[in-house]
């Protein structure tokens, strides 16, 4: 097995074209998969020395997050806390302190575990994914990107994420078997735009209830355009339970998750009102 650390995006894209090349970001998923024999690279493409992939910055009306930014960096970033609160919250409890130091947002998407904690927040915050191929750069909404099978064509690299600063107030909650070091059994991200008392736009994304996390259009349309009141919260709970019931069908986890989702969505909605829950532009 070869190991390569390119020093530019162009070089990385070139190396990525070689058959049998697998991209190494943080390694917290890949290293395990390699040991288990699930992935057998002929060449490991380590992105850690490629410049420009580790930055979090505000550029005009957007927040740019490089694909190699770690969960630790995100979780300690004021820019993220103020403008992408749901993502910031997810970064407090993803994995463990050790994992957060290595694991990257790009890798979280690339590995695309059903329980990935980074994906629901990015979905509700209307994120776009920046990809690089030999043909050049591509920008695609995360929601559309998640429709691709396979997610990443060979030779495609995730460069980063672009979050529009549109005034989303967001929140996140996760349920695991422990309070830390736990893979999500359920995770929920919520984002609201507009006046809470008038007719806000609402986005809800669910994770760990399907092959991939998804933006729930039924929840979003059921909850948008109404004042946020205790009744609204109950409606959210009922709708979430229906959505989970439908998503999980006959799976063994359905019984548990369609009840437990009530608590998780309540918690996610409650976290909307925490300090830092609003993004700029509101």
């Amino acid at each position, binding site marked *: *097995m*070869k*190991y390569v650390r390119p020093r530019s995006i162009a070089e990385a894209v070139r190396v990525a074209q070689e058959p049998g090349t697998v991209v*190494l970001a943080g*390694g*917290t998923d890949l*290293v*395990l998969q*390699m*040991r288990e024999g699930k992935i057998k690279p002929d060449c*490991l493409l*380590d992105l*850690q020395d490629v410049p420009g992939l580790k930055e979090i910055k505000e550029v005009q009306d957007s927040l740019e997050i490089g694909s190699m930014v770690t969960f*630790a960096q995100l979780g300690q970033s004021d820019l993220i806390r103020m403008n992408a609160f749901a993502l910031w919250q997810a970064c407090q409890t993803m*994995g*463990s*302190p*050790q*994992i957060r*130091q*290595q694991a990257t947002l790009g890798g979280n998407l690339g590995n695309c575990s059903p329980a990935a904690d980074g994906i629901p927040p990015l979905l509700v915050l209307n994120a776009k994914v920046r990809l690089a191929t030999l043909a050049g750069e591509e920008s695609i909404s995360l929601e559309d990107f998640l429709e691709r099978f396979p997610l990443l064509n060979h030779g495609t690299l995730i460069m980063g994420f672009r979050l529009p600063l549109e005034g989303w107030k967001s929140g996140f909650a996760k349920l695991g078997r422990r*309070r*830390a*070091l736990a893979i999500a059994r359920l995770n929920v991200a919520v984002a609201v735009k507009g006046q809470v008392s008038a007719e806000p736009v609402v986005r809800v994304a669910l994770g760990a209830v399907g092959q991939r996390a998804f933006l729930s259009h039924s929840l979003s349309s059921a909850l948008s355009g109404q004042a946020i009141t205790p009744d609204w919260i109950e409606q959210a709970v009922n709708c979430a339970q229906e959505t989970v019931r439908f998503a999980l069908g006959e799976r063994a986890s359905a019984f548990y998750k369609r009840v437990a989702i009530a608590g998780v969505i309540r918690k996610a909605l409650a976290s909307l009102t925490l300090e830092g829950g609003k993004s700029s532009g509101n």
Partner: protein
Amino acid sequence: MEIKLFVNEKLHQINVKPEERLLDVLRDCLGLTGAKEGCGEGECGACTVIMDGQVVNSCLVLAVQAEGHSITTIEGIGNRLSPHPVQKAFVEEGAVQCGFCTPGMVLAAKALLDENPHPDKETIATAMSGNLCRCTGYDKIIRAVKRASEEVLK
């Protein structure tokens, strides 16, 4: 392939395969057996080492990834004659039973105190939430870290 690893302030030139984990290279090539394989999947923290000042699971870091970074293992932070304040506090508080989780715990505590010299108990618990212990029930470990933070004040 030949790589250079900077461990406990020393540069080592060693020959590794790209798929070898930092944990294995530390233990088998460098004889630094303080880092333990508790689970091999990043779920227990017994393999914790400090890389560039922050804790990582050495069972999930490839040795080749670690080239160019600064690694500190438990062997690098103190010894019997001159223990690190955290090690001293662990012993004094009775925070060591079988000792298997201890190297990881001590390193996690040291990394915390290096950044936040006066953490409260909740902060300590969060900083060490990636290290599991099956013996102690955690209480004495947290007390030891608190004690170490107070010792450094003196």
